[in-house]
């Protein structure tokens, strides 16, 4: 019948159209071999033109190491792709300065295709040819990026300053090899002692003027870092660092690094201890905090964690009222923001997740800081207000070191005689015999776990503080109230979420054991704590 | 009948039960009313 036939014709037509369009799309994509899907550190996105405006094709994803390898095989070096200008190799491809979008396009296409064609002719396995646009302009390549940020930690820094291969003419130290500051007078960047800072302090994500109003630009951080590291590694012979992307930017490579544990303190004229003094002493009611700089240097492995912008005193940017330089983060927040990793409180909080601390601290609810915890840092005998205003720099430093040296080095604890050896828990024993808890043994073990921990020493101010882990919600005392005095019958509406006695015990013991990652006794092994009642 | 319904279910149980009875009445009255309407129609065929 007529109708059926015309239907068929339509279907046929549609299928044909579909096939054509698919084929057409294929034509633009590449059949050239792109390395099978894996994860690499060297996936570079070339989008220099994209930054200038919109492009007809997406940015190019480029495997740098692949090409470095290829060049090695052809025993060519970086100069094959990177031009050199007054003794300094440019990290740009085949140029030292970016031109117009057109020029760049031409530059990339001609050079890439030329080489690929050449290699193809030579019968080598090579990259895409002219016309295989999508092979390079591939917004989502099969490969995943394994790129990992790398930083100059204390150990790595020490290996550089102690390296024989790094020398600066006419200087006994080699800081000048990397560290430099721009001097408007000489219009040069050169090393000045005790001004060393992290690269990020001056080199931002985009190029910035070398000085206020200067038209000379200092390179962006990324460029600056690679120029100083890679170029140095390239030209240094003998004991030198990696030059490939994967050499620095993979977890594997970073694991391989030699680690120097005992790193001598870095001298940059910093104090051992200093007073954190608010800019507006009228407003700052609490006593100034004496900060043990030396201790923190030792317990962190770089300066950047606290000196996140540049090396300077906190109060320079973070004022009581907050100001632009400090991104309007007030001094109070800068020191106490719980979520932040750079604030005192924030950093100290993360320390509590250590198993030896978590046993007690993970069971403690998130609560407003107590007066006592304020006093730990804002010590009562510390200078404040007018007294502080009257002091000069040296007096402040002296006061600071006095306060710091007065701080406890070990945690105050009760003597064994004050710690009951056994506690028998039998108030509600029915199916099981009373549990004989080795109270003293447990306490001693827990204390031993935090022995020598300066933080524990200074925050567990009273011998009773440590007991509060279990004997919570009651004032610090040598003889805290029994559990029964608060925990009794379960689920009494007026007592809110307070567990009954049995649950209180189990939650405390099991919760702590879990948090401290103690395998035994298992939470479900009843008999290991209290023998089953036989009669 | 000031009864408080705490759950939608109870409420529906109550109302639907009544509605079902009403439906029954409606169906019956439809028939009756139809006969009432058409009662005087003259027959198509004249016997």
């Amino acid at each position: 019948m007529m109708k059926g036939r015309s239907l068929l014709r339509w279907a046929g037509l549609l299928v044909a159209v579909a096939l054509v369009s698919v084929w057409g799309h294929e034509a633009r994509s590449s059949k050239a071999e792109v390395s099978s899907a894996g994860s690499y550190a060297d996936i570079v996105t070339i989008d220099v033109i994209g930054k200038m405006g919109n492009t007809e094709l997406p940015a190019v994803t480029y495997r740098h190491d692949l090409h470095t390898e290829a060049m090695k095989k052809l025993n060519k070096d970086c100069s094959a792709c990177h031009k050199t200008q007054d003794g300094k190799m440019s990290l740009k491809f085949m140029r030292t300065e970016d031109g117009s979008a057109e020029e760049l396009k031409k530059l990339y296409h001609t050079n890439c295709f030329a080489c690929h064609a050449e290699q193809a002719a030579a019968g080598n396995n090579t990259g895409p040819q002219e016309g295989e646009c999508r092979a390079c302009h591939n917004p989502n390549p099969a490969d995943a990026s394994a790129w990992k940020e790398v930083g100059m930690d204390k150990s790595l820094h020490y290996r550089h300053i102690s390296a024989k291969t790094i020398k600066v003419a006419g200087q006994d130290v080699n800081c000048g090899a990397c560290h430099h500051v721009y001097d408007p007078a000489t219009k040069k960047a050169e090393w000045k002692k005790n001004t060393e800072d992290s690269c990020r302090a001056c080199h931002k994500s985009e190029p910035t003027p070398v000085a206020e109003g200067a038209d000379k630009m200092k390179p962006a951080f990324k460029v600056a870092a690679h120029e100083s590291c890679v170029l140095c590694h390239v030209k240094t012979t003998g004991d030198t660092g990696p030059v490939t992307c994967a050499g620095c930017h993979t977890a594997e490579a970073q694991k391989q690094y030699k680690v120097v544990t005992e790193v001598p303190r870095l001298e940059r004229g910093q104090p051992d201890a200093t007073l954190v003094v608010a800019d507006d002493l009228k407003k700052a009611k609490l006593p100034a905090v004496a900060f043990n700089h030396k201790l923190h240097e030792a317990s962190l492995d770089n300066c950047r964690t606290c000196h996140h912008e540049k090396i300077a005193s906190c109060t320079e940017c973070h004022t009581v009222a907050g100001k632009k330089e400090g991104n309007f983060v007030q001094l109070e927040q800068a020191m106490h923001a719980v979520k932040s990793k750079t604030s005192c409180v924030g950093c100290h909080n993360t320390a509590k997740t250590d198993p030896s601390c978590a046993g007690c601290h993970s069971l403690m609810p998130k609560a407003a800081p107590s007066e006592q915890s304020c006093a730990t840092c804002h010590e009562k005998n510390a200078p404040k207000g007018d007294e502080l205003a009257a002091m000069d720099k040296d007096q402040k430093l002296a006061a600071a070191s006095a306060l710091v040296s007065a701080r406890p080095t070990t945690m105050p604890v009760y003597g064994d005689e004050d710690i009951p050896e056994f506690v028998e828990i039998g108030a509600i024993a029915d199916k099981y015999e009373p549990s004989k808890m080795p109270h003293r043994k447990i306490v001693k073990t827990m204390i031993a776990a935090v022995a020598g921990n300066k933080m524990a020493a200074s925050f567990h101010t009273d011998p009773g503080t440590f007991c509060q882990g279990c004997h919570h919600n009651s004032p610090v005392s040598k003889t805290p109230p029994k559990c029964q005095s608060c925990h009794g019958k379960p689920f009494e509406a007026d007592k809110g979420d307070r567990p009954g006695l049995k649950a209180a015990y189990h939650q405390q013991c099991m919760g702590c054991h879990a948090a401290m990652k103690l395998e035994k006794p298992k939470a479900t092994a009843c008999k290991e704590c209290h023998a089953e009642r036989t009669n | 009948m000031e009864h408080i319904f705490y759950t939608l279910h109870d409420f529906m149980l109550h109302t639907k039960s009544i509605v079902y009875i009403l439906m029954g009445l409606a169906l019956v009255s439809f028939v009756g009313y139809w006969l009432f309407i058409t009662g005087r129609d003259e027959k198509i065929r004249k016997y």
Partner: protein
Amino acid sequence: MDRRKFLSLLGGAGLASAMGATKVKAAGTHTFNGYPDAMGVLHDSTRCIGCRKCEQACAEVNNLPKPEVAYDDLTVLDTKRRTDAKTYTVVNKYNTAGLDHPIFRKQQCNHCQEPACASACFVKAFTKNPDGSVTYNGDLCVGCRYCMVACPFGVPTFEYDDPLDPLVQKCTMCHPRIQEGKLPGCVEKCPKEALTFGRREDLLAIARDRIRKYPERYENHIYGEKEAGGTSWLYLSAVPHTELGMPLVGKTSAPELTSGALGAVPMVVGIWPVLLAGAYGISKRKEKIAAEEQADAVREAIDKTKADADNAMKTALDKAAKDKAAAVDREVKKAVAEAQQSFDEKLAAMQAPAEAEDTDAGNSPEEEA
């Protein structure tokens, strides 16, 4: 009309509108928030240690048969289990990504605020009690198992192997014990208060409080607060609840899901007869008109033929007058005979089809009615 009648009418109208008003309040603006003192249980899976004490307690309290595997044998936790006619509650173990320790979750009837089983049951065998529990009356059960289809949590189970009195079985939240002021069996036995018993309202407050106090310990979602219109059992967890095998259940309650369809039923009853009677009326009317037209046609035909016949006769008579007296009466007789005959024939011809049509029009039932 006279005054009394008028007033009474007014009164009726007033009454009607008043009744209307109450209904509107109940159905429209009024929302149903469940029984104010409904109890519930809060299951905190960050506390549960998977000791199966609740399973044991449940069996003892409800005198259920002992399982083949003893309760202190925790290896059963390695296989996923569900509740059945002999087990009202089971604890399952879940190893979730990114956690070094397994999480345990108890499952049993969640005792919905708007129970799907009750809404689905066509003999009111399920009841939502003011104490929050949802209980079942086996004496009414017909055994259609629609409740099992309806329950979003797959809770009700059936005694398939009992030929005589197979019943639906599920957790009762220990309704009888609650009435005696006791705790549900599982809650009472839980060593760690992973199960917290209390007014649902209070439990919600407690749950929120725990999330606020230990933000890093809990997923910020109380399962059962809104699920399926809210349930008396509430769940706290360190990971998204779906990772603990909790079904992804919408917020809409069972009665809300079905109310639309149920509401359409009376509309059908009201509207269909009207439309159908209409359709019937139209088809009948067509017939009637058709029939009448036929009747007219027939009458016309008859008259016409009669007239012709008369003419024929007249002419014949004239002709005869002119003729001889002798020829007269023979001629006349002949003509009359012819005319008469043709008339008869025509008439017959006319009537025949009419007859046929008439009998045909008689098909529909209420010719007799």
